[in-house]
Structures are given as C-alpha cells and as structure tokens.
C-alpha cells in the first residue's frame, strides 16, 4: 500500500526553540496580530468585509489547532460555527442578552457540542475520522430544517433586537455601526490569537504536536492521546463557537447556511490556503481567500474556476500554503544573504 501519512501536512516546528527567544516570540505574536488587524481595517474595501474576514479568521484558527497542530482533518468545523451562531442568536432573540453574554453562550455551546461530537469522532483514526466528521456535518445540516420552529428553517433565525455592548442591562455602547461591530470583532480576534499562541507553545501544545507526529509513540511514552485530542476538539469548539456568535451578531440574523457543509469546506480551504505551518498563516488564509473572492466575483461569474486552479496548485507546488511560501522566501533570502556575505568576505 503506498504509504501516505499525515506527516506530509506542513508541520510547525517543535515548540522548544532555544529558551532565550521564548518571551520575544510572544511579544512578536501580539504585535503581529494588532498590526495586521489595523492594516486590514484600513485597506479592506469595507468595514463589513473586514469584519467577515476576522470572523472567518477566528474559525480558521480553531481549525488550524486541529489540522496543523494535532494532525486531524476536521470536516465538521461548520457544526461548531453554526451551533455557536444559533446559540448566540437564540439568546439575543428570546432572552434579550447583550453581546458579551450572547458570545459567552456561543462559546459554551460550541464547547459542549465539540465535546459530544469530538468524543465520538476521535474513536476513529485517519480517513474514518474524516468520514465521521463529514457525517456529523451533514446530519447537523439537516437538523436545521427538522427543528425549523426553533431555528426558523430556511428563513433563518429572525427578530434580533438592536445589538448593544454592556453587562446585565447597562448599555455601554450601541453596536449599530459597522465600525463598532468591527471593533468588537477585532478585539475578539486578537484575544483568540494570543490565547492560541500561548496554547500551541504550552506543554499541552507540545503534546498535541507529538500526537500529530506519531500517535502510537505518544501513547507508548505515557500520554492518553484520546483525552488530549478531545481537549483539542473542545478548545477548537470554543473558538469556532465564538466565531459563530460574532457572525450572528454581525449579520443580525442566523441564516440556515450557517450550519451547512459549505461552511466546513470553506473554513478548511482557508486553513490550507493560509498554511498549517503557523497560526498567522490562518489569518493570511482568511484574508486572501475573502478579498480575492470579493473582488473576483464581480469580475467573472465563473470565478470559482480560478479558486479550483488555486487549490490544485497549492496541493502540487505549495503545500505549506501562503505561510510556507513566506518561510521558503525567508530561508531563500537568508541563504542568498549568507552567500553574498561569504563572497564579500572572500575578496
């Protein structure tokens, strides 16, 4: 049998860089996140597009935690996204919750569903795991219509009150302009980015990477790999649920498409386009995918042919995705600079 292992996924390097760089890397990560969000807000054609990019970027971070750092190909991230959106939506509509409480509910429900679905999916490995997440994604997609009196079926969940930011009824800020929405979403993105950067650099993250590299050996040296994979799923569910909650808040409704398979496929494509080599790759994936889609869909009706070509090209030539290209560029430039310095010294 031709041996195809998940090792080919462009794997981030081990966590134990030399000790001296540790704090510096953290600060660089925070600065990178804040600067990128600011640049996106300025350059993006519209605030609402910038908000959409950041919402999907959060979901892609959650997906990368599983794909890049744990070696699991999750086909069901749309489930946690949709469930988070409906949870937040229902709390806005029926319980008059304000933004922070609604998002908290979205995260909580995202975690609970991730624990349930995850605990079943990680019983299988390899392609069977992928097929299981695919099955759950399709199943949840249909449940939207089976419980249409709760979810509003194909009309979507409607009747959102005006979104406002505040705690226990106090209205600190009305979220009725796209700038205010972008502000809340940007803060959430930076917070999630920092949280996940800490996590992937922690002992937990290092163990996830060990499981990605060689799950049998990780078990042999004493790690209950099933439990770690479940923890990774729950964390990914929390982050993706938050993205779903922000999606509901930003849209002012929850469309039935929020829980369909397409969302899972889109999140996956962005994760791989961006590159699973680092968390920043996930942000890149969301930005390039959505900006290009936004532009190309106005230029040519059949713009998805370009998307198809891009996907195939990435798999053949650029498995590291955009982040892989940057890393190769960096090592290439470093390589050339090195040669120039040596040649210079030679004369």
């Amino acid at each position, binding site marked *: 049998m031709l041996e195809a292992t998940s090792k080919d996924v462009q794997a981030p390097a081990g966590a134990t860089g030399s000790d001296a760089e540790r704090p510096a890397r953290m600060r660089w990560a925070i600065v990178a996140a804040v600067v990128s969000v600011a640049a996106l807000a300025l350059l993006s054609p519209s605030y609402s597009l910038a908000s959409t990019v950041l919402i999907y970027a959060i979901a892609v971070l959650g997906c990368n935690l599983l794909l890049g750092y744990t070696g699991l190909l999750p086909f069901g991230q749309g489930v946690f996204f949709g469930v988070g959106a409906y949870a937040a939506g229902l709390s806005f509509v029926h319980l008059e919750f304000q933004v922070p409480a609604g998002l908290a509910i979205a995260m909580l429900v995202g975690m609970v569903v991730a624990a349930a679905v995850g605990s079943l999916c990680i019983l299988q490995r390899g392609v069977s795991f992928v097929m299981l997440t695919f099955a759950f994604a399709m199943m949840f997609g*249909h449940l939207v*219509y089976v419980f249409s009196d709760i979810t509003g079926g194909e009309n979507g969940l409607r009747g959102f009150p005006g979104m406002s930011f505040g705690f226990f009824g106090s209205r600190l800020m009305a979220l009725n302009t796209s700038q205010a929405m972008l502000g809340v979403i940007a803060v959430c993105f930076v917070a999630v980015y920092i949280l996940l950067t800490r996590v992937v650099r922690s002992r937990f993250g290092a163990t996830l990477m060990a499981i990605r590299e060689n799950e049998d050996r990780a078990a042999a040296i004493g790690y209950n790999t099933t439990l770690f994979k479940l923890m990774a799923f729950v964390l990914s569910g929390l982050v993706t649920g938050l993205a779903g909650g922000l999606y509901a808040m930003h*849209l*002012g409704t929850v469309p039935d498409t929020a829980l369909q398979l397409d969302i899972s496929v889109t999140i996956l494509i962005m994760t791989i386009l961006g590159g699973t080599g680092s968390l920043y790759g996930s942000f890149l994936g969301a930005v390039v995918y959505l900006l290009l889609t936004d532009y190309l869909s106005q230029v040519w009706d059949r713009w998805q042919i370009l998307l198809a070509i*891009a996907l195939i090209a990435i798999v053949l030539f650029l498995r590291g995705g955009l982040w*892989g*290209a940057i890393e190769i560029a960096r090592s290439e430039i470093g390589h050339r600079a090195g040669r120039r310095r040596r040649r210079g010294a030679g004369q």
Partner: protein
Amino acid sequence: MNQSSIDRRMFLRSLGIAGAAVTAAPLLYACAKEDAGQNPGAGQSGAVDADALTLVSLYGTSGLQAELGQEGLDGLRLVPEAFGGTLLDRPVEIVAYDTQEAIDEAVRRVRESTEAGAKFFVGGLLSSTALAIGEEVNKSGGVFVTAAGADELTGSECQEALFRWSVATHGAIQETVLRMIESDSSRKRWYTITPDYVFGQALLDNAKQVFAERGIEHVGNSLHGLDATEFSGYINNAVAKKPDVLCILNFGAQSTTTIQQAVAFGVKNDMEILLAWSGGLSQFRALGPETLEGIYAGAQYWHTVDAPGNSEFVDMFREKYDKNPSYSHAAGYISGKLILDGVRAAGSADPAAVVQELEGMKYDGPTGEETIRAEDHQVIKDYYLMKGKTASDMEDDDDLMEILSSGQSVTAVDQTGCKLVPLGG
C-alpha cells in the same frame, strides 16, 4: 537531490504562484478603485457611483439559484434602456453583485453599497435572503423590490422600504387549487407533496383551508427534506391513496424532478397533476412537451399575455436576447422599472418620497393592470392557471402551455398582520 535543492526548485515555482496571488490582490484592487473614481477612505465600495441613479442587483448568479438569478439580472438590464439611459438628468446604472443567495454576502453588499450612496436594490430569490435584505435596506433607508414567495415579506415582517411584485402563497393557491375545484366538481380527493420548510408549510396551510371550505377530502400529504432528490417513494404513497388530483407544492429543481418521476410512473393516466408554484417558461422547457402534456400549473407570468405593459417588455426582451422572457426575467425587469417609475413620479431620488409615490400606484405591468397596495406594499396582480398543450397544437417551441384562467386574489389587509416598520427603524 537532497531536501534543500528540492525546496529551491519548489520555491521558484511556488514564488510564481504565491507572487501572483499576493500581488494580484492589491493590483486588481487598485485598478478597481481607479475605474470607479471613488474618493479614498475605507468603506467605499469599488463599483457604486454616488452621483448616478444606481440600481443594485443582489441576485445570486452562481450556486444553486444560478439559473433564476441570471434571468433576473438579464431582465433588470433592460431597465436603463427602457428609460433611455437617464432619469432626472442622472445616468441610470446597474451594479450587479453575485450574492449566491447567501444572507451574509447579501447583507454585506447592501451595507457596502449604502455606504457608497446607493439607495435602490433589486433581487432576493430565496425568502431568507429577501427577508434579510429587506430588513437591512429598511434600516439604512432605501427601497427594495423583490419577487420572493414568503408571506412574511408583506406580512409579519413587512418593511416600509420593501415592495413585493410576486403573488404570495395565498393568492397562488386560490388561483390554482380553488379554480380547479370550482371548474370541475369531480375533483374530490386531493394528495399533496410538500417540502418540509416554512414556504412549503405556507402553501399547505392555504391549500388545507381551501379543502376545508369546499369539503374536499385531503387523502394524504408527504413531507420531504430541502435537498431530497428521490421522490418515487412519495409518488407510490400518492398512487396507493387513489386521489383525483396530485397537488405538488414544492418548487424549482425539486418540482421538476417530482413531475418527471410522477410521469415516468404513469401517474398521469389515473389522476390529474397540479404544480401550484411553477418557475415559468424556463422550467417548462426543462420538462419538455411530452411530460407537460395535460399537466396543470400555476404561474406568476406568461409571455403571451396581451397587455400593453407586457408587449412592450416582450418586444424589448426579444430584441436584446432573441428569445421569449420567462417569469424571472419579468420579475427582474418590473422590479427595476417600479423603482424608477417611483423616482420619476416623485421627481427626486429620496427614498421616502419614492415610497410615498409607489404606495397605491396603479400601472400597466407585465400581467396587465397592477396595483401596489399601500398598507403592506404587496403588488396585486394576476396569477395564472395553465394546462400543458398537446404537441400537435403547439405553434412554436415556447407555446407549451394554454392559459385557463387568471385572477387577482390576495389576503385581506387586516389578516396579513403587517405593521410597516418605518424607514430607518
């Protein structure tokens, strides 16, 4: 060949691709800003020109609704020519976004266009998209005309900015189920096939109401999921109940497949078939004359209706596209035309003034005399009951159906439950 040299060769190739992708985005984006001549600053959409009279099309021209979306846009594209290219000495322009009928896409496009100064919107094939667009356009104080089917659009969720051209589920059932019952008393036993979602449920409730009023025996109903593709089971169910009429309440691709499988199972020779909500000429072409022969269908529009408003539209359409217009073409055309008629009558592009003019307006539309009801912004127009012609008496390829009856029936104002949400509300 060790690892590093493979990377170098890979690098050269990937640089090409990554370079293309990364540089392409700002490059394409830059020239998009140039040709739109937009003043700088984030939030400006590339395509909308503030000083033109812009009609923004939100039809999904790719994805599942690509067919109807493309037709709607083609119909809308006739409107600038219908007004000679300018109105109130401002150029009439169409800006089209492919929303793929996705709510997040559509809402984002509305916000971007409003930020760029656009006020007038057309589109929304699916009820969910139309409801979301209506709410968003109303919040930003614009005008939106749609042809989507959900009753809520001019019912519980009506908005001052939203006008609906197509007849709602109540009118469609009255003009098809009720007409057939009245015209032939032998139609006593009816079996319905219904899609298990909100729009399908509305059609079923209206049908049940008619059955109750007329003492009709509703022998059975089959509910099916939104993406079911296999209906032979439901047809078997129906045949087992031996109804007089098989009433099909799903629509679009699913209704085409249902009819096809029903005809294949030889259902036509032991019962009549009614498609309450058809997609008009395009759907009938897909079904073909043999399948359509003897089948009843309800339709919003038909190109052979002799009315001044229709002949003007059909001539213009044939001249531009060299074929007969279908329902979605007419919807796109009239939606755009209504808005500009309102602007011309109001003498200004201010949405509030345009809404005032449109409320209660009577005009010659594609289905003859049409009136816009002021209380719920529902257009009161004809809905047709048609029957499939035999191949022999078809005059040309499009002469597939014969109009049996048409009429204007609409829910009484006090029963619609509509309280117009004011602009900006």
